[in-house]
């Protein structure tokens, strides 16, 4: 499993369709028939896991776009990406 540091560029598996909800989203694993529902922040992080954004850039983007994070969202972002990894939703770079 890829170690998560601030320079890591997570990439979601291209075979997993993401469907947006008003306040979050759903990731569908067709092969296993598993659905993952993501809250607003997790859905936003998911869209930035495109291989182009580093963890550091995702954190900055969250800080700019989500007012509810009065404190540093670093741990929240890392925890969410780790969860994506654990669920095998990311490509192993």
């Amino acid at each position, binding site marked *: 499993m890829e170690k998560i540091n601030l320079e890591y560029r997570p990439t979601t598996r291209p075979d997993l*369709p993401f*469907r947006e*909800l008003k306040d*979050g989203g*759903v990731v*569908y694993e067709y092969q296993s028939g598993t*659905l993952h529902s993501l*809250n*607003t922040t997790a859905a936003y992080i998911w869209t930035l896991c495109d291989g182009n954004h580093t963890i550091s850039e995702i954190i900055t983007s969250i800080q700019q776009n989500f007012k509810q994070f009065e404190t540093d969202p670093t741990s929240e972002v890392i925890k969410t990406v780790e969860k994506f990894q654990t669920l095998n939703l990311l490509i192993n770079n």
Partner: protein
Amino acid sequence: MPLFKIQVDSAEVSLECSQSFSAGIRSAVFSAIIKSTPQSTKIHYRILTHNDRLYLYRNNRLTHRNRQSNRIIYALEWQIVNDLVIKNPTALKFHAAALAWHNSGLIFCGAPSSGKTSLSILLMQNGWQFLSDEFAFLNPNQRLIPFPRNLIIKPHLQGNIPIPADSLIFRVDDDHGAKQEAYYLSPKLFGTVSPKKLIIPTSFIFLENHERGGFRFEPLAHYAAFRLLMQHLFNPQLLKRERLDPLLNLLNAIPVYSLKIASPLNLPPAEQQTLVKQLIQIINHD
């Protein structure tokens, strides 16, 4: 022998039984929609009596025999439910009650004993149309298919509802798998049943037990509602891309709520009226 038909959307079954047995059948098996018919359908049930025993046949194949009529009716009811479910293969099936107000529907998802039946009764008593109490069906166009099976009146409700003297008693599973006595009552005892047409759902409401009495609505995040909805869906294998997208579109287009409530029928009358009014506001998107 009298011949009856039960139809849900395009699925139908017919049923033939002796005159003496027909009253029991009519009051306990899909009473709201069972009708006399001149001819049998592809799925055909027959109940015959021989030497004090009852024999239940499905398409001429014996499926059950028993001396007790309520046991046979219980088996018949479940087989018909199963047939109607299988014959609607494209419908998403939720463990939920569904009711309509002026052709707009609400879907109430909830665990067993969360208040689906008592809420259904309360709303019917206030002029709402009954669609279903146990299984809510959504067709591929996201329309609710009425599935007006009889209401199952479990022991915790029996003190709140007048039970007709001639009602049959059935032994059904409780939440922990133990047996409990229940009545199958026609929804028509409490109000009207939606006619055979399809209904547009306007909100999902997730019932939760409220220890403190009273009731409380809370708006739910759509991602959380989706997660809960999956817990109440019987056939998630249907959610391939062509069904998932329309369901998510529906979810995005309507408000979703949790309703914390102890027992709707135990609320004081004024609170019951407030509850009904608030549900109408939700339907009307006020």
